[in-house]
């Protein structure tokens, strides 16, 4: 019997055709200059504007919704969107926005200040993972059809950037509370979701919104976002030229991706290291001693961890603020230069000459190569590390104050107040033990309401203080990559892991 390639294909096709059914959607696409297919590592948890997340899910939101404002690529400034002008009162607690007239949602409902007020209040009262960002929102009222007045409980230097992210998304009021609101978004954004061509959790197909108010800014007729939870399948899709651009979760695939002709566009968005939550020593008295926290910083060879765990992609750092921030001070990076002898001396001075034991949570979402190195390096100075596997419950366990410290990768937000609200302020999500320090409180008050110069000076002092008190043990800023093919350009967003959708364009 002779087998040929064509014969084999025909035989298999004929056999398998018997079982063919129509459902789902294709992720294999034929590329033209008017269509783009992107790869993502996460699916949206919901398309309901009031509950939407950001980060890796921002691409879905920006496809179907407009924000009141747009984030600038530097991640901290904002640009006009549905709001064309905005102004604070003198104590920065009342924000008045002038809204664009003539905008309609994809269902034909007009966008007005009343709609914007409803969206904001719904976001505040919903269950968005971003909800804490509008904790200062007291009220939102329409003064007239195009004027929105937002009242804050207290000044919030990050509020404008929040309005350019999830909190500012505008959904048609006709869709509020609809049974399919989570899977069938109705916005005024550049695209509409084609629900019949979408497989929830796997592939999302968007089509150009014919009613979009800024039609010239939309560069593609269709946008497809495919989700790859497995690095191997994402690599295969990239090597098979099935994607035009993609966010990469696992940097180990980059050499092969680059060999396939993709450009790696990187930015050092996060920091990786230990978060020393329990600064009061509630879970472990040793962690309440600043000398112990400093010893932990001295004991770890961050450069080695960057090389082994971070695969050399990133830069060593000793602080949580970004280099572009007024808080940043280059010399702070060497405050705790790797020095095991100094670590041992600090432990002895703190009363732990004979050593101490720390319980550290581990999980599949953390890099496996880290654990033996960390155990060895801390063990060398007399800190015995006991690992506890948290399974899939890591975040909940950390937030429930079960661990006084943990390895983690946290975003270094471009907007400093956003960063502070996430990891330093007394009520910050990642200040899990809600530790409060009067020195920090005083500096935060100045940063919150002070002039630009006063705020910048206070930021610098805050950073120095946090480093001195060893609230964290930052090791390195890993590089996040967004890869693009030869026909696609991108301008990264310094405030988010995903670029703004409108900054992904066909190469001229």
């Amino acid at each position, binding site marked *: 019997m002779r087998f040929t390639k064509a014969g084999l294909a025909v035989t298999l096709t004929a056999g*398998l*055709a018997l079982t063919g059914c129509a459902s789902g959607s*294709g992720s*294999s696409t034929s590329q033209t200059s008017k269509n783009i297919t992107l790869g993502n590592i996460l699916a949206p948890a919901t398309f309901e504007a009031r509950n939407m997340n950001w980060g890796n899910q921002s691409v879905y939101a920006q496809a179907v919704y407009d924000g009141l404002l747009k984030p600038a690529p530097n991640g901290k400034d904002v640009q006009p969107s549905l709001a064309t002008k905005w102004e604070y009162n003198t104590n920065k607690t009342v924000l008045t926005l002038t809204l664009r007239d003539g905008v309609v949602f994809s269902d034909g409902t007009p966008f007005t200040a009343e709609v914007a007020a409803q969206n904001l209040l719904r976001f505040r009262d919903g269950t*968005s993972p971003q909800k804490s960002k509008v904790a200062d929102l007291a009220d939102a009222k329409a003064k007239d059809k195009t004027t929105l007045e937002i009242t804050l409980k207290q000044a919030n230097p990050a509020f404008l950037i929040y309005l350019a992210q999830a909190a500012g998304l505008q959904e048609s009021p006709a869709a509020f509370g609809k049974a399919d609101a*989570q899977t069938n978004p109705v916005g005024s954004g550049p695209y509409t979701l084609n629900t019949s061509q979408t497989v929830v959790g796997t592939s999302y197909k968007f089509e150009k919104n014919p009613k979009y108010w800024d039609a010239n800014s939309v560069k593609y007729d269709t946008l497809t976002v*495919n989700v790859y939870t497995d690095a191997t*399948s994402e690599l295969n899709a990239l*090597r098979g030229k099935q994607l035009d651009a993609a966010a990469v979760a696992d940097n180990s695939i980059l050499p092969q991706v680059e060999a396939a002709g993709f450009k790696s566009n990187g930015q050092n968005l996060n920091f990786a290291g230990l978060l020393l939550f329990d600064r009061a020593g509630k879970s472990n008295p040793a962690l309440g001693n600043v000398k112990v926290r400093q010893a932990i910083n001295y004991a770890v060879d961050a450069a080695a961890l960057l090389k082994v765990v971070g695969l050399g992609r990133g830069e060593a750092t000793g602080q949580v603020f970004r280099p572009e921030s007024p808080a940043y001070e280059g010399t702070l990076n060497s405050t705790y230069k790797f020095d095991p002898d100094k670590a041992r001396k600090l432990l002895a001075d703190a009363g732990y000459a004979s050593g101490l034991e720390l319980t550290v949570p581990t999980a599949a979402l953390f890099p496996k190569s880290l654990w033996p190195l960390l155990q060895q390096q801390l063990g060398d100075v007399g800190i015995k590390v006991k690992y506890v596997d948290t399974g899939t419950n890591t975040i909940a366990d950390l937030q429930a104050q079960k661990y006084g410290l943990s390895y983690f990768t946290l975003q270094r937000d471009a907007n400093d107040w956003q960063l502070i609200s996430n990891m330093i302020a007394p009520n910050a*999500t990642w200040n899990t033990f809600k530790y409060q320090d009067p020195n920090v409180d005083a500096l935060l008050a100045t940063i919150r309401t002070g002039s630009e110069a006063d705020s910048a000076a206070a930021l610098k002092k805050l950073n120095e203080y946090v480093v001195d008190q060893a609230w964290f043990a930052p090791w390195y800023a890993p590089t996040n990559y967004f890869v693009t093919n030869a026909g696609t350009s991108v301008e990264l967003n310094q405030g988010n892991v995903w670029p703004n959708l409108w900054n992904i364009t066909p190469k001229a």
Partner: protein
Amino acid sequence: MLTFIGRRLLTGVALLAAITTFGFTLLYFGGGDIARKILGENADQQTVALKAQQLGLDRPVLVQYGDWISHAVRGDLGASWFSGQPVLDAIGSRLSVTLSLVTGAIILIAVISVVLGVLAATRRGWVDRIAQLLAIVGHAIPGFLFAVGLVLVFALTLGWFDPTGYVPFLDSPTGWAKTVTLPVIALALGGIASVTQQVRGSVIDALRNDYVRTLRSRGIPARRVVLKHVLRNAAGPALAVLAVYFVGLLGGAVIVEQVFAIPGLGQVAVQATTQGDIPLVMGLLVATGILVIIFNLLVDLAQGWLNPKVRLS
């Protein structure tokens, strides 16, 4: 026959009840803080508590299970906690994808195994040795590795097929064939190895029977004896192995769909189980349970048709 089918269906319902009770218990006690998992790392504790309340997670486990059962028997499997998509929609949109892979694999296994098994049993010699070698190789290579190898060679190097994704048949038959061929082959490998061995053994056994000698002595051609009489008797054990393999294929689809990024039940099962998406996992348990029950029933009926002695028993 109707009594037989009715009894099998009743057993199936009891089996489904046992599977869902066991599944719910495992998910409930192993799921961790679901509300936190849904909202992610940046949500504050108050929002997490509010979400848990919205989902009814603050109620006792028995109340939650009772609620699920009372809705499920009315055909309401709820909505995914992580995407908001109705569970029936999530399963419906993916069922045909997985079924096309599994059915394709079953057909491939059946055809290749019967041809190879019969040839090995009747010709012996080098044909038999090749069949034995293929069986060993088929068992030895892990499905995941084989799938990756297929992608590397036939999709990325030769470019004959798509490395990832799925195109519905009605959208493009060619595109569909390019997306399902490699996953089907990857799924079928282990089954071909096992069923070929089973067919070979059964045919060899059948060939030793007196009735075969009698048929041959009457001058009936060997090919006719094998195809009409021997194969019919040997099909029973092979069908039994195939039925077992059907369940295995549903499991194998989990890995294959991950490697090929195919939006089938396996892929969503991995995601939903990892996340602790109880409504979706429970829906998947019900769907796969029903599939397995139906397939086993069909195999029993086929065996009865092939062999009247089975029907009588």
